[in-house]
């Protein structure tokens, strides 16, 4: 390991308990994001994305596992460290404007408010810089209610990075936007990531987001299952070639999730046979596929 990753979650577990009912939102999630990286986490609704993000933003505490963000251990944070963490280490953008911006303050005042909370100095210069960076100088004196959805999210991004955090977290930042505006907002996040080098994690259920990021992590049932890495190369004729390669995620103890369609096409269930070959591992069905009266099947 050459550098320490900015986000490192290992076997992260979050269990919600309400009146005896347990919901395992995260069941041993492992995730690593290197400094300056731009990563998307995609997954179906209810797969635990928001839970992950609220843990990373210091609003929630995991039940088990470990989570380190920019050198801070999120499980062993004191109250004072949490305040400091939220002020200077992370910034976030949520889906709803109401959770990002105060409706009674103008765009620029919202930026100021974030800096006041964090006791950041030389606010005027920083505010000017941010307005410039996100191209919102012309709407600086409008209130959120007077802004379009895309403009609101741009302002929200500016607010999130007002205190120069190491990590920017975004939970469904385009959830309420149309396609064109979504692309515009994602472009803004990319721009910020590139310009400031802030490590960025976007969470979304919208698979199209992955087009804007280098790395997409798929989470399923509270666990990271596959990763898609994207690379751009230029071919002989000078045209840009987009390569997307899908990987399954392997955790420390060797667990991995097989893609759903793989399992379906071979009717894999309950048990598989493995065989170690020279350069790969073979996965075989337990038995011939059609055995309707198998008692083990009735167990389910």
């Amino acid at each position, binding site marked *: 390991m050459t550098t320490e990753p900015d986000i490192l979650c290992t076997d992260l577990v979050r269990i919600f308990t309400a009146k005896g009912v347990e919901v395992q939102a995260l069941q041993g999630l492992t995730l690593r994001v290197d400094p300056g990286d731009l990563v998307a986490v995609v997954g179906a609704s209810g797969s635990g994305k928001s839970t992950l993000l609220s843990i990373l933003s210091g609003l929630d505490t995991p039940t088990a596992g470990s989570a380190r963000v920019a050198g801070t251990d999120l499980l062993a944070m004191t*109250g004072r460290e949490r305040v400091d963490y939220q002020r200077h280490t992370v910034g976030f953008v949520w889906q709803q404007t109401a959770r990002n911006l105060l409706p009674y303050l103008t765009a*620029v*005042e919202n930026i100021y408010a974030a800096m006041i909370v964090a006791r950041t100095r030389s606010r005027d210069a920083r505010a000017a810089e941010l307005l410039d960076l996100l191209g919102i100088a012309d709407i600086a004196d409008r209130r959120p209610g007077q802004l379009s959805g895309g403009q609101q999210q741009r302002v929200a991004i500016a607010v999130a990075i007002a205190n120069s955090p190491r990590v920017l977290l975004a939970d469904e930042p385009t959830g309420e936007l149309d396609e064109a505006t979504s692309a515009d907002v994602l472009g803004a996040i990319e721009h910020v990531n590139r310009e400031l080098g802030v490590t960025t994690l976007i969470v979304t259920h919208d698979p199209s987001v992955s087009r804007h990021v280098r790395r997409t992590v798929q989470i399923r049932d509270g666990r990271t299952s596959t990763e898609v890495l994207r690379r751009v190369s230029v071919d002989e004729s000078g045209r840009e070639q987009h390569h997307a390669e899908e990987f399954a995620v392997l955790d420390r103890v060797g667990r991995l999730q097989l893609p759903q369609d793989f399992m379906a096409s071979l009717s894999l269930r309950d048990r598989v046979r493995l065989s170690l070959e020279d350069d790969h591992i073979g996965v075989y069905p337990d038995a011939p596929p059609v055995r309707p009266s198998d008692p083990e099947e009735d167990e389910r």
Partner: protein
Amino acid sequence: MTAPSRARLGPARLVVRQVAAAPAATLAVAAIVLVSSLAAALAPRALDRVFTDELRYGVSSVAATQRDLIGTTIGAPPTGFEAQLDALRADMGDVLRASAGAAGFVSRTPALGAIADAPLPDAPITLLSVAIDPAVADRITVVEGAAPEPVTPLESGGFEPISFVLSTESADAMRWSVGEVRTVRATGGASQQFVLSGIVEAVDPDSDYWSVTTSVLQPELFDDGNSTPTVTATGFVNPSATAAAWAVMGSLSTTAWFSLDPAGLSFTQSTALLQDLRQFTSSTHDIAGDGQEGELSFLSFSTGLLPALERAEGRAASTVAVLSMAIAGPLGVVLAVIALGSRAILERRRSGITLASARGASPAQLRGALALEGLLAGVPAAALGMLGAALLLPAPVGVEATVVPVALALAPAVLLAARAPARGLRIERADLEPGRGSRARLLGEAVVVGLAVAAVIVVLQRGVASGGPALDPLIAATPLLLALAVCVVVLRVAPYPLQALAGALRTRAGLTGFLGATRAVRDPAASVAPVLALVVGVSVAVFSGVLVSTIDSGVSSAARGVVGADLQVRGPVFDETRLEAIASLPGVAAISGVDDAGPAVLAFGGDRRTVTVLVTDLAGLRELRGESAVPAGAENGSAEPVPAIVSADLALEIGDQQPSLEGDALEVVAVGSPDDGVGIPTNWVMIDASASLSVMGVEFRPRTVLIGLDPGADSADVASAVSEQSGPGVLSSDPASVAEALRASPAVSGLGSALVTALILAAVLAAIAVVMTAVVGARSRTRMLALLATLGLPPRGSRALVAWELAPVGLGAVIAGTALGLALPWIVLGGVDLRPFTGGSRQPTIVIDPGLVLLLVGGFAALAAVAVLVAASVGRRTSTAAALRMGDE
């Protein structure tokens, strides 16, 4: 990018912007603080005013001549007496000294016969007393003859004729002309000649001096028509003649005084004045003498002002005690409502707080911001309230009067800061986890109930604390503690009938009914504040009602006790003829003459006691009061032992021992209540007129007549008929007029208006609490309503839901509050002396006026219902879409 408005955006400004964005809740809290601090600041000022009025009323009821500090002692004033009196004045307490005038004194001898050398045949018997006053020259002017000369001793003992002066009236009545010499025979048998040297007139005949130095301006005449008339007059001798006067007349008494002028005295000073007066009058002041025979060696003073001040003080103390009970509840409610208001503020700031906290606002920052908002809500409002009070009722009040307004000013800040969340806010689903925090709740409830029970036990055991401290914190807090305890019970018990109701409604149609009842059980909106407000409001109303009817009937029965019958007339001696004439007046049903035969010694067992003997016509009294009060045979004064009625306190002491009055054996045939003693509450013995001569040795000479009237007869008509018959100087009183005079006391009427104010305050607070509760609960309710609207619930269901939120608990609170209000008088009135209000000699019995109670409770219930309706319309502002999105958070 550095527009000035932006650049100035700092932490404080941020809070101000936040408040300005959604000021409703903050303004509501500010309004509550304004009104309550105004009331809290007005209360001591208003009370000071009432008590000052009461004080002046009390002082004005004392005759001017009785207000001065006066002391009379046997003996002559030593030299330097004036300086010693000045020293006494210097030693007085500050407040007393400020209202005490310079000292004065006069010495006088007893009156002895002055016999002319050649008395005229029809000359009256003349008795002369002489007075010596060093300041006499300032009091009289000589209009004829000359001022008295110093005395010249004779070698043979005695003096040359002593010169003195008389007023014109005295000289005329004594038929003593200037220059005439008469001989006064002293007690030892020696005689001394006196010569009238001049006639004088008073410089100021209206001066109080002449009520101390009597029989100077006007001689005393006694003429019973049979024997020779007697004229008694006092003359002044030369101020240096003290020793001579003493030697000649055998005795000398000296009266010293300080005039007291408490006009303009305010109540705050009266406590100090009373203390100073008690101290000055309770001690005997030593006077240093010259070692001469017959000198006085001490002085003690008294004033008629003392009882008047004590009465005013007693009324003030009882008023404060009663009001503190009536006010502590509403004050508790004010705090609860402010707490509710800060919850509403917190609701409004929820998104801002959550955001700030997520962005790394420290708990201290959040607390600071909320405290700042609390200060914005509380401090200007309370300052305004205090200023308003000072402008409305300028009165000198101490710092202690600002304690409550200052507390109110700070309450929102403290409550908001205390509520500031350690880590942002999350929506908690109370319905899923009803057990959460139940241990803390149970503990809190146990503490409240325990404190209430302990307070009740202590208060009941203590009994009437007459003359105790004006403000007893325990008694003041007891009603509030009880209200809190009742509140706990209501909140605990209310779910059970509701659960049953929800079960019953589930099977019926009507979604709202079922939902409402279920929600009221699972997610109760009604917190402590509205229930407390209703319980306190209703109980204060009922308690005030009971108090008013109790005092009212106490005043009436005390007035009846003072008068003793439908009508009482006093004045000259009512002889047989006069009594018969009164009895035959139209409208008169029965009469009984009463003769206060004065003190006499009652002996029983080994005890001897000085009692007041009331000689009455017991047969007439039986007609007035019935067989049970005056048994048959009581009027048989020649029986042995003599039948007698004794006061209850005496009866208790006598027990079954054999009493005898002035040596005559008595038989106690009845025990009188304090009201039977015609204004004398205790320590009296009543015997029949026929026993007067044999027991008391005096004829029955009633100066008071108790009159029973025919139904419908007018007491004023009868009274004027009596005074027409018996001549002027007949005074009459009836229970109604006596009661009216009692009620005219500023303290008594002030208590009434104070109770009404407390009642209105409590009612307004209850209404505010109900509306506020609906506002605080609006968020969760609109969310549910929005959800239900998508299922097709009609919008008017919302009103029903609000009603369901508040009505069941509200109803419970009104019922429990009524019960508490009815129980309170029995619990707390034992600890408060109500006699200052009724003027009676015993604590009035508690009287419940069912009509008044029903009216008050009904009014309260109606008010609460209106408040619920208002609350219902308040809670319907948010749009469905907004509410649903809010729910996502």
